[in-house]
């Protein structure tokens, strides 16, 4: 057995393919956090008074809060005064006229990441239209969306253009004092996305490629707000499989979803932040608060996530099922390798009658990593006929990794039906040998076995994303078994 371990370890030592940094001058605030910093951020963004007040209120609340320590993760204490809370890349300001004017360093980065040529210009912020395919594609998208009445823009823009919607819904699902990281985000959030789907509108496209193009520079404190008005539908894709490096080690994003009566929001994420080196040094700490509110009857919110990056992942996309007959879903694949730590799961809060939720969580651990599922299913006293089905499966690769499951169930209604299934398995030598004996090399075999394990989650992803996610797992596991 020990020989096998040594062999496994040797293979697990894969290197992060995007282990490089780009030097770009930026317009940054010195480290530190106080009310002046918040005023500076708000002023920089030319925000209306209500926004500044909101941020300041959040900051004051945050000062009173404690950093949570209940998660099954270990990291050195973060000094929040050693972080700079505002940074804008300089090259964005003037807007290069063509790729020739773009910082060659940045272009080389895209090349290493394998970003398609036509997307590079847009990512680099080239401000011309019609010249590059992607930009005109984006313009076409914009036209199509505005015809449908869909609002899709950076949240900083929405604060200017749709202040009434922002004021009504921002913080309505994740209150500023919800948790330490959400409080911090509310005070200093940099940017993010805003989506509004009007009544009865089915968003004519998946909000994906467009987002990818616009996703850059949202910074470490990302804030997203999606509102689906009555009877509308939207599928939103966040992140991309291209590995992302960031100078900012701490990331604390907040995502709020609101589904009104009969509306449906499908939110898919692929997260591949820099995980750190083999000892976990330099990896991103990802503390994310994601929550959806099924505000109206018959509404539905579905989270699907594939998590492969970050040194630390602390993330529990949740659904509050307030409307009667509303539906919440959570499909997750979390893969950890080397020294990565993930504590992730979901909360399904059943408040309305006949509310239903499904949780399918798949954890894959390799190397010396640790992966935990933490889930809460709560049924309120008025949630007659509530139903939940939970399935948590863990897959271990090698013998130095860990997988843990922390399910919490609280039911205050006798009519509720809650099911929980959990399994832990290993990629067995028998499975590997069967594959090899049929002519399949071991790396291919592991990726096939892992993809099979994740099948139930992948089938929830939009097709194109599912293929990418499969490939991502393959790359992330490269050489993890000999």
């Amino acid at each position, binding site marked *: 057995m020990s020989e096998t371990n040594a062999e496994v370890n040797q293979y697990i030592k894969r290197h992060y393919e995007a282990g490089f940094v780009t030097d770009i001058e930026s317009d940054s605030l010195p480290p530190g956090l106080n009310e002046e910093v918040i005023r500076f951020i708000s002023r920089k963004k030319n925000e209306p008074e209500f926004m500044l007040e909101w941020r300041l209120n959040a900051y004051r609340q945050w000062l009173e809060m404690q950093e949570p320590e209940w998660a099954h993760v270990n990291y050195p204490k973060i000094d929040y005064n050693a972080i700079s809370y505002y940074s804008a890349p300089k090259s964005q300001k003037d807007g290069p006229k063509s790729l020739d004017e773009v910082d060659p360093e940045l272009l080389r980065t895209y090349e290493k990441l394998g970003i398609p040529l036509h997307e590079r210009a847009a990512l680099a912020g080239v401000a011309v239209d019609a010249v590059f395919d992607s930009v005109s594609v984006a313009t076409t998208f914009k036209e199509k969306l505005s015809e449908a009445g869909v609002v899709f823009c950076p949240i900083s823009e929405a604060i200017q253009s749709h202040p009434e919607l922002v004021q009504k819904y921002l913080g309505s699902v994740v209150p500023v004092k919800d948790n330490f990281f959400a409080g911090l985000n509310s005070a200093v959030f940099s940017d993010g996305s805003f989506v509004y789907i009007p009544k009865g509108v089915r968003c004519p496209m998946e909000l994906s490629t467009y987002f990818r193009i616009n996703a850059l520079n949202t910074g470490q404190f990302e804030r997203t707000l999606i509102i689906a008005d009555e009877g509308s539908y939207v599928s939103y894709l966040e992140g991309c499989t291209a590995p992302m490096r960031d100078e900012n080690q701490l990331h604390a994003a907040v995502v709020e979803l609101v589904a009104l009566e009969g509306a449906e929001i499908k939110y898919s994420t692929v997260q591949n932040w820099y995980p750190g080196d083999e000892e976990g040094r330099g990896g991103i700490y990802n503390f994310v608060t994601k929550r959806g509110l099924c505000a109206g009857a018959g509404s539905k919110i579905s989270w699907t996530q594939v998590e492969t990056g970050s040194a630390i992942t602390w993330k529990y996309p949740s659904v509050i099922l307030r409307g009667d007959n509303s539906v919440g879903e959570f499909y997750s694949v979390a893969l950890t390798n080397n020294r990565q730590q993930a504590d992730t799961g979901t909360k399904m809060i059943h408040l309305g009658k006949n509310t239903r939720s499904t949780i399918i969580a798949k954890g894959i651990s390799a190397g010396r990593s640790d992966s935990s599922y933490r889930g809460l299913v709560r049924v309120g006293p008025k949630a007659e006929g509530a139903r939940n089905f939970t399935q948590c499966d863990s897959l271990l690769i090698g013998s130095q990794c860990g997988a843990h499951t922390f399910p919490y169930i609280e039911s205050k209604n006798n009519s509720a039906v809650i099911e929980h299934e959990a399994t832990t398995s290993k990629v067995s030598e028998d499975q590997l*040998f069967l594959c090899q*004996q*049929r*002519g399949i090399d071991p790396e291919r075999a592991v990726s096939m076995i892992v993809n099979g394990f994740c099948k139930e989650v992948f089938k929830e992803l939009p097709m194109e994303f599912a293929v990418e996610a499969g490939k991502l797992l393959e790359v992330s596991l490269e050489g993890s078994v000999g």
Partner: protein
Amino acid sequence: MLSIKNLYAQVEGKEILKGLTLDVKPGEVHAIMGPNGSGKSTLTHVLAGREGYEVTSGSIEFGGSDLLELEPEERAREGVFLAFQYPVEIPGVSNIQFLRTALNSIRKHRGEEEMDAGSFLKLARQKIGMVNLDPEFLKRGVNEGFSGGEKKRNEIMQMLMLEPRLALLDETDSGLDIDALQVVANGVNALRSPERSVLLVTHYQRLLNHIVPDYVHVLANGRIVKSGGRELALELEEKGYGWLNIDEDVAADQES
């Protein structure tokens, strides 16, 4: 085709094969019989290259090359196929995806083009019909929720797809009813040709009524103690292993 000379092999430090010598020529079917713990399964696993089965001395030549130098997947690509006694499940990986990956790995090794999805499906449907399994099984996860008999048929189906030069059957007949036994036998017989060889490991003579072997060997205490033709199996059925002067206790002791 296959030439095993004076082979010694151990599992977890325990010597199981002790000077085994065997020659299998193209087109021949050899049956290996013997008491529990005599090393029958160890032999098939050593041939397939299973990790943990350590060859300490002796040689195995296959089709002119040194088999022991090859990784398990390379052996498979060279045409060694092992039908498992206890086939494992691979949940979520469809039979069809698994087989297509396998077949194309082998074809690539032979310098052939990958088989396109359409031709592959046609072939797979034909082969699965030969083992009396519903084509629906192609869509299911590898052995996922299959009954014992279905798993064995699936093994034979894979063998028919991959068309090995040397098929190793490790007690494929154990636990099968007479119909399933017939299906397995038909599969193996369909594969028989002047270029292919088969090594059958079995406890029971009855399989050999359906797959008639050219040679029968008795394996005991890690080496072949008696070889003969088809009639040897009948004799064993009648008399047991006792008349061969095998100390069954010693043999059983080899089991771990």
